[in-house]
């Protein structure tokens, strides 16, 4: 479809772009003590974009802007998810960032980037979309300008980001050299149609996996994660571990399905090039979750611990990538939603409790179960849900992930996954133990504002509800990927 006709299918992105520009101007006109209005406007803008994106759900598969971008329900599913994550993160940030209005505008720009990331269909657009998310993320990670750790986080993020994007772009150049196309569909046709040399294809694939793996914090491209997660402002840490990661996984899945899959079946890897993709992904998944879990064991800082746990969760999700079928992708898409709620919940507890506890160390949570029971119980639910213990949403998510791989007889992988779940129980349960079993002599009760409590409930309810009634969501995920395969 040509550029002008594509615009009508590009409404959420157009609306976001326009509102970013308008909000920048409005923000300049606001007085210094009224800057919080920018946050309200940003929430409104993302909400409208959310609904505009949601309305696109039943559109047929459309190729926009001369094939640069595709619109399908898979993209819409992730657009809705990432928009929701931005809305939640704005609400999480509001109490702490009352004067820093640029912060919210930058979040909107990241949202626009994530929208593009989940619908790209061209090698050049992949780089543009990923950089759009990446560059703004570097700024956001270093947003606490006068905090040395925040500066360090930002710098490390920039260096790793630049290197991995460079590697990925180099991989893309190999792909272009081998196939002569930048459009993903055309690349697939070229790979199937010609007998290519296996070695360059394998090298290109590994390089692209390196670039995407950095984005989703996959081992061995994870070294930036703990430092960035510790140094960045807590809401940004939460955001980086959900929004951009979801977009990265969506991009990864799209790349695998459109380029590496065989067009006839779409659920098997292309046979005429021996790139060993399933085995490679399986090994990476195992390494990712094991390293994430084992490193999380010894962490004293709760943000760092959650950072390593985020790596481990990427490992779980990659497990389902290995089987490469509808069931696996559905499980990942479902798990991403569940993970969004429980992870944001845990980070919200950290964010709202840090001023009261005075520290981000796990030991500071000592006796929280007696000082403010609601928060402590909610934190316990998030921790158990992250471990994957019934009856919480995390358990259902894990069940689908494991079911997907066991159906395809990846038993060893499943066993390693379960062992990892047991390891993770230690450090998640340790937080609960500190909160409830350790207590001070005198109990200093904490008074939590109404806003904090309402937001806590809003994050807690989905985790509880999805644990007992998850049918509609899994159907939605299944349909989204189904439409995707249908075309």
């Amino acid at each position, binding site marked *: 479809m040509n550029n*002008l006709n594509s615009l009508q299918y590009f409404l959420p992105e157009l609306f976001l772009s326009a509102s970013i*520009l308008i909000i*920048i*101007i409005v923000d*300049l006109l606001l007085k210094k003590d009224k800057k919080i209005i920018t946050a309200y406007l940003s929430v409104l803008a993302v909400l409208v974009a959310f609904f505009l994106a949601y309305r696109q759900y039943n559109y047929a598969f459309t190729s926009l802007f001369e094939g640069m971008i595709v619109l399908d329900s898979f993209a819409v599913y992730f657009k809705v998810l990432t928009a929701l994550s931005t809305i939640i993160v704005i609400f999480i940030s509001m109490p702490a960032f009352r004067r820093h209005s640029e912060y919210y505008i930058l979040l909107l720009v990241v949202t626009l980037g994530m929208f593009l990331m989940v619908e790209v269909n061209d090698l050049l657009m992949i780089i543009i979309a990923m950089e759009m998310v990446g560059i703004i993320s570097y700024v956001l990670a270093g947003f606490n300008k*006068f905090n040395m750790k925040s500066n360090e986080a930002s710098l490390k993020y920039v260096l790793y980001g630049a290197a991995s994007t460079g590697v990925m772009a180099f991989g893309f150049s190999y792909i272009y*050299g081998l196939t002569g196309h930048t459009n993903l569909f055309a690349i697939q046709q070229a790979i199937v149609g010609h007998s290519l*040399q296996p070695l360059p294809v394998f090298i290109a694939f590994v390089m692209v996996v390196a670039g995407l793996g950095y984005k989703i914090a996959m081992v061995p491209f994870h070294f930036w994660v703990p430092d960035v997660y510790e140094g960045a402002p807590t809401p940004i840490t939460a955001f980086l571990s959900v929004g951009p990661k979801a977009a990265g996984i969506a991009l990864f899945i799209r790349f695998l399905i459109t380029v590496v899959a065989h067009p006839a079946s779409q659920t098997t890897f292309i046979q005429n090039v021996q790139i060993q993709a399933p085995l490679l992904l399986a090994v990476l998944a195992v390494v990712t979750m094991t390293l994430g879990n084992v490193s999380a064991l010894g962490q004293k800082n709760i943000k760092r611990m959650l950072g390593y746990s985020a790596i481990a969760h990427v490992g779980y999700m990659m497990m389902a990538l290995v089987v490469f079928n509808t069931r696996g992708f559905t499980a990942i898409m479902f798990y991403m939603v569940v993970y969004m709620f429980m992870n944001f919940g845990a980070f919200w507890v950290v964010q709202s409790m840090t001023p009261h506890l005075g520290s981000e160390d796990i030991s500071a949570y000592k006796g929280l179960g007696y000082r403010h029971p609601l928060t402590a119980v909610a934190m316990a639910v998030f921790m158990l849900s992250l471990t994957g213990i019934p009856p919480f949403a995390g358990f259902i998510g894990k069940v689908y992930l494991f079911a997907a791989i066991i159906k395809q007889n990846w038993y060893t992988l499943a066993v390693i996954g379960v062992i990892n779940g047991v390891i993770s129980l230690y450090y998640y349960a340790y937080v609960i133990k500190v909160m409830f079993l350790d207590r001070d002599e005198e109990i200093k009760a904490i008074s939590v504002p109404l806003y904090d409590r309402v937001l806590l409930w809003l994050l807690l309810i989905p985790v509880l509800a999805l644990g007992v009634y998850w049918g509609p969501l899994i159907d939605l995920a299944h349909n989204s990927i189904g439409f995707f395969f249908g075309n």
Partner: protein
Amino acid sequence: MTGFYIVFLFLVLGMLIVAVTLLLSRLLQPRKREKDKFIPYECGIVPEGEAWIQFNNRFYVIALIFIIFDVEVLFLFPWAVVFDTMGMVAFVEMMIFIAILLVGLAYVWAKGDLNWVKPKPRLAHLAKKKGE
């Protein structure tokens, strides 16, 4: 892989040409070692001190702002060339593009970055000097 021999040829030829020209000038050039030739070029002025000095970091800000308009002009040239064939669409597109850049200009203007001496540097975190 057959098309790649051109690339290879190009690579070899490129290196060869560079090597040959460097060698030629090396052989042909008259060499007179004078003291002035070892001074770094600086608009005809004798350089003072080292090149590694601290300078006002507002140069960076000005350079960044310059890029906004630099890129704008860069895009205006091809636009002007195809304007006759594209007509109204091109006009609207370019107006939107310029409007986006104008938002950037408005931002730096309102933040006081167009002034060489920034109006009110509120650096509350820095200790104030005595007498201020």
